[in-house]
């Protein structure tokens, strides 16, 4: 780690060199790609991204890649096991002095919420339990985005998706993956969003200094999946934080700390009303009961957060 990176305190401390190439097939305004750009700038090119099936599988399409470092596509369920194989192999090569320390790589899993919250959860749990030294980045667009936004274990209550198109939207509730990970007591867990780049960079910087499992969920506003104009991605990301829908927090040394407590907390409605997936809450008639329920859920969350 360079001295500069160790001192990310203000926006102007953020890396000015951007490592991830352009021209990827991600959608315009992809909040996941935004977060990945910011993560990669801090993580650096001496890394290998082990990818699980999802939107970002298409980042590296033969013979192109936006990464200056390395990449391994695996499958939907087992990217953490791929990271295990690469990490163990590098450790073995280092131990047996078949490669020098300079050849070592930071091993990072790159996965969507479809894999992270569902199919890949067992592999993630296994990797944490084995204390695998890796970074895990989930870009959470709250649905199976790559296949057209069907609901996943990450879909929030009431959101309309390709498989929950009724008047009440998705009947389930977003799974608390942060808490599930924290229950494993890994080295580090954090939530981030690309729209809060300073908070994100500081967390990646911190994660980079730690060893063991370090898991990051990046809320990934998704213009086609959530139903808004791509130019609004940053605003939507900010609103997720300022309305308290997406708490920015980290777990380290056995404690959960909120890194940005919204003051004053804006009404949840401001976030919901900008997205087509929640349009049924407002038209043809306001669904006051459901809106109140969604606000109450956020209020209840923050009521138990000690400042």
């Amino acid at each position, binding site marked *: 780690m360079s001295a500069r990176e160790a001192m990310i305190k203000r926006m102007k401390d953020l890396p000015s060199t951007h490592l991830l190439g352009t021209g990827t097939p991600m959608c315009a305004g992809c909040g996941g790609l935004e977060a990945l750009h910011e993560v990669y700038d801090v993580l650096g090119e001496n890394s290998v991204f082990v990818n699980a099936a999802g939107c970002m599988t298409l980042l590296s399409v033969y013979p192109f890649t936006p990464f200056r470092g390395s990449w391994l596509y695996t499958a939907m369920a087992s990217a953490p096991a791929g990271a295990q194989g*690469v990490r163990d192999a590098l450790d073995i090569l280092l131990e047996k002095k078949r490669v020098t320390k300079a050849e070592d790589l930071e091993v990072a899993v790159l996965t969507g919420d479809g894999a992270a919250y569902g199919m890949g959860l067992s592999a993630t749990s296994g990797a944490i339990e084995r204390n695998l030294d890796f970074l895990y980045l989930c870009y959470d667009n709250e649905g199976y985005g790559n296949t057209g936004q069907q609901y996943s274990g990450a879909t929030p209550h009431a959101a309309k998706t390709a498989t929950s198109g009724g008047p009440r939207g998705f009947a389930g509730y977003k799974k608390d993956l942060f808490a599930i990970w924290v229950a494993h007591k890994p080295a580090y867990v954090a939530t981030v969003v690309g729209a809060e780049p300073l908070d994100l960079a500081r967390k990646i910087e911190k994660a980079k200094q730690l060893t063991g499992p370090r898991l990051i969920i990046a809320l990934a506003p998704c213009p086609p999946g959530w139903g808004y104009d791509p130019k609004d991605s940053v605003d939507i990301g900010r609103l997720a934080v300022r309305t308290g829908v997406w708490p920015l927090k980290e777990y380290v040394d056995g404690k959960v700390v909120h890194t940005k407590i919204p003051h004053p907390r804006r009404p949840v409605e401001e976030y919901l009303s900008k997205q087509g997936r929640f349009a049924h809450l407002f038209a043809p008639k306001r669904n006051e009961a459901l809106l109140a329920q969604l606000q109450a859920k956020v209020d209840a969350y923050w009521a138990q957060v000690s400042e």
Partner: protein
Amino acid sequence: MSRQLLTGNGAAAWGARLARVDYVPAFPITPQTEIIETLAAWLETDTMDGRLVTLESEHSMITAAGAAAATGVRVFTATSSQGLLYAMEMIYTVAGWRAPFVMINVSRGLAAPITLESDHNDIMAARDAGCLQIHCATCQEVLDSTLMAYRIAEDERIRLPVIVNMDGFYLSFTREPVELPTVEEANGFLPPFDAENVVFRASAPTSQAVAVLGGSPYSYFRYEHHLAVLKGNEVYDEVAAEFAERFGRRHEAVEAYRSEDAELLFVMTGSFATKAREAVDRLRDSGVGIGLLRPRLLRPFPETRLRELLAGKQAVAVIDQNLSMGKGGVMHAELASALYGQPDMPPILASFVGGLGGRNISAEEFFEIAKVLQTAVAEGKTPPPRLLYTRDELREMRKLQAVAQVEREELGGGR
């Protein structure tokens, strides 16, 4: 060289040890577990220099195996039956990575109904995955094939996973005398793994296993993979020849037993072929001109060699220890496709299915099969496929059903 009584599982573990494997991603499953327990004991006592990691599933185990091989270490793993099927997505996937490693499959029948005992439906399910397959009939072969498999897998013309198959219980838990090469002898045969440029290193960033867009690049890589597996025929022969020179044991791609002057042939894989061998001797004593062909190499399928060995023969009985529902024995179909339309091939190619879920194939059944072949030759007519099952077995089965029925009635659920 020393001689030890080893189970098939023990022989597999010794194969991995003598191959100086760096990394063993593992997951327990009967009847394979003894392999990883043996390796774990050696690794924990520093008898062996490497690392064993138990993953949370076979799917993850194969992912880790492929990823580690793609990073440039020598990898060994083992599974069986349901485990192989659970891993199947990744078996196909890592083969496409062209990441060489060796996996032992201890064959066991597939659910449902669930069973622990042996047949070949599990390994046959992996036949299109793009791995090479070597099928063993003895514990010695398990050891030798494991060493040979690394040479073949890591050959620059191949660079693919190789699966070494042995039968659960019949080999995995059966002790046989096994000649163990010394470390020096094994090292002389198997040099250290040279991953060349297919690795992950900070100084040489690379993307592996990337997506393709469109059928043309996809087809290119798939065809290339297929051609690499086919190259396995030539590489196998070279490696088997060198192995024979160094160790005095020749493991042909197709074992031919008393086939040269035979008019009739059994074709079988795996440990049950040793039963066929015994039957050949007894049939020969009674004047039946029969022999045995046992393909050790299943992928690539040694078509050329099989055609050579079968040229001019009158009739073949393929005895499959697997069953493709709605089609029949898998190897029968494979052999038929290899022989059809070729000059001088046997006119009779009969199919028999037996030995499912560990069911024995008795000497009498081999004699009966030989008789069916003789009749077929006399009549010039291929007999219908036959599912081996004896009257006595059926009687025992009826007893089980009767017990089940009585109990059902007793519990009030009967019809």
